[in-house]
């Protein structure tokens, strides 16, 4: 088991003992053959200097601050359900927000535009989406949409599938007794 850092270990001629021996002309003395003392390398010296500690602390603090501000700022109300979004339509204006509901059977795709409606607790909202829907998008699937109101229509720019906690094979007898989150 090595205790030296070979890259940092001084050479024989650079060590103080050897240097003094050479200076006194005693190059062939017994002391010249003694290997120089190794530098002690501490294993936890990665963040040893004050400057490195400050930099590491700043990086960690910045990461945590970014996560808290960016994430928890809107995490407590990640989305509004369709009834909430419809009720708050005037106050929301053209603000960007998320809305959650289940896709109805009226999905139509023309070019890059997908039109459909979503329903939650018997309240329905019309949606126009201009991005390609995800692979699991289909009628009957709960979705969370990002976008804003454009009059009475929700203009969506991102569709996310909100799947439930249920996992069933296609022919599972338990499938009829599922409950969502």
């Amino acid at each position, binding site marked *: 088991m090595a205790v030296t850092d070979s890259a940092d270990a001084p050479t024989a001629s650079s060590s103080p*003992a050897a240097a003094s021996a050479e200076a006194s002309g005693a190059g062939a003395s017994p002391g010249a053959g003694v290997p120089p003392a190794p530098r002690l*390398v501490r294993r*936890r010296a990665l963040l040893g200097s004050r400057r490195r*500690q400050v930099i590491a602390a700043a990086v960690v603090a910045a990461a945590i601050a970014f*996560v808290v501000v960016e994430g928890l700022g809107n995490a*407590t109300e990640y989305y509004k359900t369709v009834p909430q979004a419809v009720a708050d339509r005037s106050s929301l204006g053209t603000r960007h927000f998320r809305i959650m509901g289940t896709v109805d059977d009226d999905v139509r795709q023309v070019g890059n535009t997908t039109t459909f409606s979503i329903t939650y607790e018997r309240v329905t909202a019309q949606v126009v989406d201009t991005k390609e829907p995800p*692979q699991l998008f289909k009628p009957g699937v709960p979705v969370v949409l990002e976008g804003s109101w454009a009059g009475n229509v929700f203009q969506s720019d991102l569709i996310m599938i909100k799947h439930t906690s249920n996992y069933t094979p296609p022919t599972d007898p338990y499938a009829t007794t599922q409950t969502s989150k």
Partner: protein
Amino acid sequence: MTVHKGTANQLTRVLGAGSLVTVALTALFGLWLTPPDAVQGQLVRLIYVHPAAATACYVGFGLCALASLAYLWPRTRSRRWDRLAAASAEVGVVFCVITLATGSIWGRGSWGVWWTWDARLTLTALLCAVFLGYLALRRTGGNPESRALTSAIVAVVCVALVPIDHYATSWWTTLHQGDTLMRANPLIHGSQLYTMLLSFVAVGLVFSWLVVHRYRVEVLEDRFEEEGFAVAIAERRAEASAAVQDRPAESAVVGPGPAVAASSSSAGSEMGRDGEVSE
């Protein structure tokens, strides 16, 4: 110089063999023998990795906090608790990164996005960042006792995020789904359920295997520090002794004993300075 054995013994060999067998079985059932999901199709196979990794992450951070509490309690204070806290936190961070990575892959397939700032995802990322900070704190050097004390306090504070993260899907509206298993009637059945439970056993064994090895690495690192220090002192003494022998006139007058002692003392203090600098 003492050559230490590795970190393996009978226990780790049993844990390692158990890990290999259960991981192989989980892969076999998870990838081939279980059916796809009615809604998610083949994406469901990530359920045999992601929840178990998340649980191992929570257990790692929880174990770190418990060991830190044991270190903080004066009656049970021991270096071994500090080592266990370090080992379990490090393994916990590894599983936290696996959780975030597999969750992101799953999210891209099922939700349609790699990442979104909902409460569960945000808190898991925060948990990872916080315990990375904890690991960085452990590498700041300085007095081992004060470092262990500070780290223990930080670990006990940081672990409060674990239950908040776990219950985030119940407390707030999230894109992330709620619990599947932790309810009276689990929402997964048959071979899917059994394979999921098997994945917990597999990941639990891998987690234990890693923690035991990492703990023993900590022990070896401590010995490395202590023995490195002793070896450095011995070699400095040899240097000083050689320097004395290079000066025959002085040694004839003064004698080797006291001169060596004086040189050793000076060399020792010099090495102390070196140690401080490298720290």
